[in-house]
């Protein structure tokens, strides 16, 4: 840590981790709903829909808080300048956390906008917008005043602005359900396959430069190519959500072709990360960080690239659309692409925020956490996939009643629940480990870090 204002990242990370823990616990309850019979008296008070709204909104909230914290950590180091308004950043955290808590309590009492993933009621949406504006102003002004332009900053600021603008499209009430879904996907798809990818690519590039010591110009050149391919396939690829919502037929072609190309930029990201890791110096420790980073890009490719491609073609999607196949893809893709990236960044920043950069710490619990969560989510996604294929075959191909298709998948939802327990255990380990991170006593000599060379150059 080279700048004082980087410390603002710390409370963001802590809150993100706590919300993450709550999110996965609510996930267990959702799985129980699928394989057990929850009695009417419970369903009337706490229905599946409420728990689902909490599960998904907590996910979005904690990932965004993680991204914001990461941005506050990254910006001073990238621009060589303290954050412009550190107190505003704290006010923003209080505002967003308050909004999140109000939303979750509101859901429990049936206060909702009622649109999946965008359930936050409209009055609270305004507070979210205020929070986003505070954030963009703070980061934007710092970048502009510093005039140390890098592609990483550009990608990050571009992604954050894009993210905030798209959120606005999700706020109004639309009379026509087809138009409603059309723009709903501008928020959901263009977030995860546009804006968030820009942010994720920027954070990955920053980490690679710090961790490998590979020259910035090389990393950033490939960042351009990755982003170009992400946006080329991702923007028109939104069409793969427009097959069956009452939009014209050409979306079947546009969506099918562009989304079939979507795995390629992710593959390039995997290759780039691997190449930079090999070319760069291997002195960077802890090893744990590599496990998270490499694990993340691989699961990103599996979850978003392969599991996504598996049901993106219209001929297949006709049968799998809106089934548990989607659930399977969603879980692995989010985990690989965004959860592990956030955790990588936390593991990178935490020792620095706690004042022992580069010193060794006991990594074991972090490794256990990685393998529990990763294998847990993988097993969970495979369980959902089996359930999804069964459902698609029984309901969509054979034309059986929906509830008949749900009977045999109960077993697989139970399997998903068991894997969920492993995930929860892993999350507890990671959160505990990160929050109690300490250097190993008596072994505090710093390890040679490539980041220092670059930091000196930058100043």
């Amino acid at each position, binding site marked *: 840590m080279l700048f004082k204002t980087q410390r603002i990242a710390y409370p963001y990370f802590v809150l993100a981790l706590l919300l993450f823990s709550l999110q996965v616990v609510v996930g267990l309850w959702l799985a129980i709903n699928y394989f057990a019979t929850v009695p009417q008296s419970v369903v009337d008070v706490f229905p599946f829909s409420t728990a689902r709204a909490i599960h998904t909104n907590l996910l979005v909230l904690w990932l965004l808080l993680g991204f914001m914290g990461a941005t506050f950590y990254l910006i001073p180091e990238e621009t060589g300048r303290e954050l412009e308004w550190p107190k505003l950043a704290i006010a923003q955290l209080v505002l967003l956390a308050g909004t999140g808590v109000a939303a979750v309590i509101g859901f429990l009492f049936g206060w909702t906008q009622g649109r999946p993933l965008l359930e936050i009621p409209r009055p609270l949406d305004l507070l979210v917008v205020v929070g986003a504006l505070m954030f963009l102003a703070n980061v934007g002004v710092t970048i502009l005043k510093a005039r140390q332009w890098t592609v990483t900053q550009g990608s990050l600021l571009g992604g954050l602005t894009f993210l905030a603008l798209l959120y606005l499209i999700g706020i109004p009430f639309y009379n026509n359900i087809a138009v409603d*879904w059309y723009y709903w996907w501008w928020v959901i798809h263009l977030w995860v396959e546009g804006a968030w990818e820009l942010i994720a690519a920027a954070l990955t590039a920053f980490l690679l430069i710090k961790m490998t010591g590979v020259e910035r110009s090389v990393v950033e050149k490939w960042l351009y190519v990755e982003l170009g391919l992400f946006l080329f396939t991702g923007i028109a690829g939104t069409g793969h959500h427009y097959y069956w919502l009452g939009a014209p037929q050409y979306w079947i072609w546009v969506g099918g072709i562009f989304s079939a190309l979507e795995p390629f930029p992710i593959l390039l990201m995997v290759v780039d990360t691997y190449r930079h890791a090999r070319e760069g110096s291997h002195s960077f420790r802890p090893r744990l960080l590599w496990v998270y980073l490499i694990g993340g890009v691989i699961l990103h490719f599996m979850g978003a690239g392969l599991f996504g491609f598996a049901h993106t073609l219209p001929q297949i999607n006709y049968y799998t659309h809106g089934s548990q196949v989607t659930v399977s893809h969603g879980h692995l893709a989010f985990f690989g692409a965004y959860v592990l990236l956030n955790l990588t960044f936390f593991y990178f920043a935490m020792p620095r925020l706690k004042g022992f950069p580069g010193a060794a710490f006991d990594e074991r619990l972090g490794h256990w956490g990685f393998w529990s969560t990763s294998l847990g989510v993988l097993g969970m996604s495979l369980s959902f996939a089996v359930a999804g294929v069964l459902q698609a075959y029984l309901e969509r191909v054979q034309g059986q009643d929906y509830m008949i298709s749900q009977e045999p998948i109960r077993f697989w939802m139970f399997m998903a629940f068991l894997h969920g327990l492993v995930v929860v255990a892993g999350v507890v380990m990671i959160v505990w480990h990160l929050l109690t991170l300490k250097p190993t006593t008596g072994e505090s000599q710093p390890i040679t870090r490539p980041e220092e060379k670059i930091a000196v150059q930058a100043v």
Partner: protein
Amino acid sequence: MSEKTAKWIFWGGTGVSLLLFLVLTVDTHRQFSTLTHADKLSAQVVAGKRAFENRNCNDCHTILGFGAYFAPDLTRAYTRLGEMPIRRRLEKPEVAFVDSFRKMPHQSLSEQEINDIVSYLAWMSNIENNDWPPQHSEKRWKRSTERMLAAAALSPGAAVIEQEQCLACHNLGKNGGNQAIRLEWIAKRRDAMWIADFLTDPEQKAPGCGMPAYPHLSAAQRESVGQFIVALSSGAGR
């Protein structure tokens, strides 16, 4: 690759995709009113959509395949269930789903809200969305009708099968011989016209099958045999 090429890939790729996307968005808007029958999108339908969102229905059900996957898709609920069953489920889910292993929460909806939601679902069931979902596809309904017609023509086909003693070689239910394929299995892969055609000269379509030809049967007779066999198949119409 030079940095300049990399920049070109970024701006070019983004620009092309964005342009295509925006142009198609404009065109999609021109077509939405026809495809969704927006002329029938009355104030009551909109009120139904609001009521539907108020109760967070979409976080269990899917509509047009979007939402949560915990309860049936409602795109064609109106065509599938009709008005009265929808009302019953909305009024008293605790009674309607008393035997189900998955429950629907009681919504305490007013009479007005129920009317609104029904008209919302009625409007939705007519959206032209490339015949999704497959289980409620129009093509599937039409195939069912064809099957019924084939079953109505059952007796002439059965009569021909009796007259020509097909069961000397073929199995049907517990009757018949073991030499040839079970009649119920044939229509898993073949349709009525194919079967009718096959009967004129089996050796031509399946050399060495050993089945005699039936050139003395009229085209109508052969077709009635085909329809009878199609009607027998448990998986017909898939």
